[in-house]
């Protein structure tokens, strides 16, 4: 069963993957609460502060734009660091920059005297600066100081402007410094932001011709814009392997910051609104980024786009792309700024809705109505009599106030993909078995495919089985789903899958068992019949058991292929194994105890007979030596032999061989010595007797 579901799910996933790769499908949504919660999850301070001032700024700026988070708990640990950086005389422009841009957000209490010192310090740095980054940091820092209410004026604004401009290239990019020949798009964004700050810091107005030249540079920069298939636009470096390469997101964000900042001070730029919209779509198409830097760049760039002086992009998005005919859904469209704020009064027109497969238009020029309460444009599709399926929708936005055309970018025609789903009626289902030559006379059983059936059929290899049914959409048309499969599963879990053919009127399958005998591996028996019908637009896709069929197939010949082995649950090998019952050797039959004891006594009888015989023979101890020393040795000799015999007894009862051998060695040495003495004494006495 799991395999079936996996099969169906896999197929559905394949369809989805195919859909997502389709160009012109706009599944873009404006910044939502998903971004807010992601920001809170990603930007997590460690012990009340972030690792560096740069990261602190990224976190706090993101929170500020999104309107989440609290800065009060960060400021406690960070403000002293900021103050320290500002007071130090050895801080670099970058450190001033990182410290100063935090002040506005954190709200640290810093005296104006400190600011003035820093300002004069920065002025000196600007005079000496030669690289783009140093100029950038110094100028922006000075701008932030001005933002705190302290007077900060750039004395030689024209000179600074000129030195920044000197680093520009003909294609609109900028170099980092005069030594470096490499030009970078990211640097262009930095430079534009710096130039904008110079203009706003200048005490006297900067020459308009110079500003015009920079506007021209911006236009050239926009010529190098790149695009993806789905209509999003972005900036990237010319050479990907440069030492200072930052990805498209960072580069595009930098350019957007620079361009919007410059437009704020310089007035109207000659950039078409479509490009701003493309850039906005680029940032929104990322979705919710997974890293802090990506999220910061996305949110920061979008906040620049939200209210910029070139054109504010308006995003058209569909909150729901799957509409159900059964639940009478309406087609809903949202038009908002990138952050979801309200757009100016406008009308959305559905220019065309065409079926995705056949590309034939089903709807044309439908104006959507506006719901002021929910800020949504909607269209009732039910009265329009559109059938289920997948559709490409083309929308056009028309602003009510023609003045707004200069301010907002609506982007002409926008495409979206939508599904219309409904309940498909399965009609006139019939199944039956018939002989090969008697098709018309077949008796068919009716099936109700809205629930599981339990029909039972029987067939032999000379017959055929037929299944027919009709699929009808809610509007009464014939429906052709993506998946229509019939599965026969044998008792031994061997499965066979068949696809059904569809004619104009109905779906039909005829299984000719004569031709299928070999495919079925000659397995006779009960086969379970399952029918699977599924489609993305079908709300009641199903996998149903129809019943079973008992097939009688002939015997397999010698060379027939065996059915494939069925997969075993891979974890079954880790289950408990069958218990092994040990068969112990049955113990030998032992004789009854009485018999054994009787023979034990009987064995001792010869010993008694021996002793009696010895007495009869008249043994005596006359040969025993009389004098003390030889007598002692004799006694020891006999004692030694007795000890050895005792040792043997102990060996049999409990000792092991090695202990016994050790003891025997000792006793043996003793016995040899003693025995030698005794026997030699005995020999000498008997020799004396003989000679005597």
């Amino acid at each position, binding site marked *: 069963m799991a395999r079936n579901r996996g099969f169906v799910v896999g197929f559905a996933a394949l369809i989805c993957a195919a859909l997502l790769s389709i160009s012109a499908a706009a599944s873009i949504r404006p910044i939502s609460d998903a971004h807010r919660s992601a920001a809170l999850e990603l930007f997590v301070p460690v012990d009340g502060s972030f690792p560096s001032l740069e990261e602190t700024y990224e976190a706090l700026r993101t929170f500020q734009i999104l309107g989440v988070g609290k800065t009060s708990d960060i400021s406690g640990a960070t403000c002293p660091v900021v103050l320290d950086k500002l007071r130090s005389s050895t801080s670099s422009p970058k450190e001033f920059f990182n410290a100063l841009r935090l002040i506005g957000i954190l709200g640290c209490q810093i005296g104006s005297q400190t600011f003035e010192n820093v300002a004069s310090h920065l002025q000196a740095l600007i005079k000496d600066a030669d690289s783009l980054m140093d100029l950038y940091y110094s100028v922006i820092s000075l701008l932030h100081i001005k933002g705190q209410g302290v007077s900060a004026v750039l004395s030689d604004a024209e000179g600074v402007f000129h030195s920044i401009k000197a680093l520009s290239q003909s294609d609109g990019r900028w170099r980092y410094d005069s030594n470096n020949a490499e030009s970078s798009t990211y640097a262009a964004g930095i430079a534009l932001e710096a130039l904008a700050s110079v203009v706003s810091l200048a005490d006297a107005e900067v020459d308009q011709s110079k500003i015009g030249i920079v506007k021209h540079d911006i236009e050239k920069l926009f010529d190098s814009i790149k695009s993806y298939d789905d209509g999003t636009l972005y900036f990237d470096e010319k050479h990907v392997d440069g030492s200072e390469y930052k990805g498209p997101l960072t580069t595009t964000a930098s350019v957007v910051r620079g361009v919007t900042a410059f437009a704020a001070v310089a007035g109207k730029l000659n950039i078409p609104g479509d490009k701003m919209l493309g850039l906005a779509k680029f940032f929104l198409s990322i979705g919710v980024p997974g890293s802090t830097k990506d999220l910061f760049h996305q949110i920061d760039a979008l906040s620049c786009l939200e209210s910029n002086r070139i054109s504010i992009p308006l995003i058209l998005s569909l909150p729901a792309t799957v509409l159900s005919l059964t639940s009478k859904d309406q087609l809903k469209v949202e038009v908002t700024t990138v952050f979801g704020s309200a757009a100016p009064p406008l009308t959305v027109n559905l220019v065309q809705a065409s079926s995705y497969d056949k590309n034939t238009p089903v709807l044309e020029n439908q104006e959507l109505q506006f719901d002021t309460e929910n800020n949504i444009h909607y269209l009732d599709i039910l009265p329009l009599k559109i059938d289920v399926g997948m559709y490409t929708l083309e929308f056009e936005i028309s602003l009510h106030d023609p003045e707004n055309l200069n301010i907002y970018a609506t982007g002409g025609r926008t495409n979206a993909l939508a599904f219309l789903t409904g309940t498909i009626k399965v009609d006139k289902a019939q199944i039956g078995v018939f002989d090969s030559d008697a098709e018309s006379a077949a008796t068919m059983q009716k099936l109700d495919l809205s629930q599981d059936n339990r029909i039972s059929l029987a067939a032999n290899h000379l017959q055929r089985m037929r299944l027919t049914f009709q699929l009808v959409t809610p509007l009464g048309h014939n429906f052709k789903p993506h998946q229509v499969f019939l599965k026969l599963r044998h008792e031994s879990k061997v499965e066979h899958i068949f696809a059904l053919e569809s004619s104009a009127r109905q779906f039909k399958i005829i299984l000719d068992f004569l031709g299928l005998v070999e495919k079925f591996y000659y397995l006779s028996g009960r086969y379970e019949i399952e029918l699977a019908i599924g489609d993305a637009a079908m709300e009641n896709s199903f996998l149903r058991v129809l019943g079973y069929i008992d097939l009688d197939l002939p015997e397999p010949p010698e060379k027939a292929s065996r059915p494939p082995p069925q997969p075993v649950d891979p974890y079954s090998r880790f289950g408990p194994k069958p218990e092994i019952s040990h068969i112990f050797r049955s113990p030998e039959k032992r004789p009854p105890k009485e018999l054994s004891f009787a*023979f034990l006594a009987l064995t001792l009888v*010869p010993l008694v*007979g021996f002793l009696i*015989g010895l007495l009869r*023979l008249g*043994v005596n101890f006359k040969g025993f030596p009389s004098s003390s020393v030889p007598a002692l040795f004799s006694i020891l000799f006999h004692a030694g032999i007795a000890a050895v015999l005792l040792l043997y007894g102990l060996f049999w009862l409990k000792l092991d061989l090695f202990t016994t051998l050790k003891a025997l060695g000792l006793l043996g040495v003793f016995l040899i010595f003693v025995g030698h003495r005794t026997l030699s004494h005995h*020999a000498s006495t008997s020799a004396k007797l003989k000679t005597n």
Partner: protein
Amino acid sequence: DINPCASLWRRRRREGAAGVHLRSLVSDSGKQELIMAKSNASDAQALVRSLRSAYAATPTNLKIIDLYVVFAIATAIIQVVYMGIVGSFPFNSFLSGVLSCVGTAVLAVCLRIQVNKENKEFKDLPPERAFADFVLCNLVLHLVIMNFLG
């Protein structure tokens, strides 16, 4: 003379035993002949009596050794009869028991040969030495037997 029967018969002829009818077949080739006694029951009895009297002449120490051998063999026979009744499990115990008896009997026979004064081969061997060998061999035999007994 090695053949004890022949010396016995010579002695009986010398002593003039009566009532024995001999029919002996002596071949010219000089082979050892079977002496066939066409005798009645009294012949066997007379034979046993003479054997007994001849045996009585053997020295006491040899008689002790003979008695020891008989004791050992009798024990062995009883063990074999027991095995015949109850079966040979455990076989190692049976073997060690029987071999102990048989082994000690064999060693006793060797001792008898060495100690027997009529045996000219071992004339120069002192009987104590033979006895020491007997004891030593018995101890070694019984160590092995005890190990094998189980």
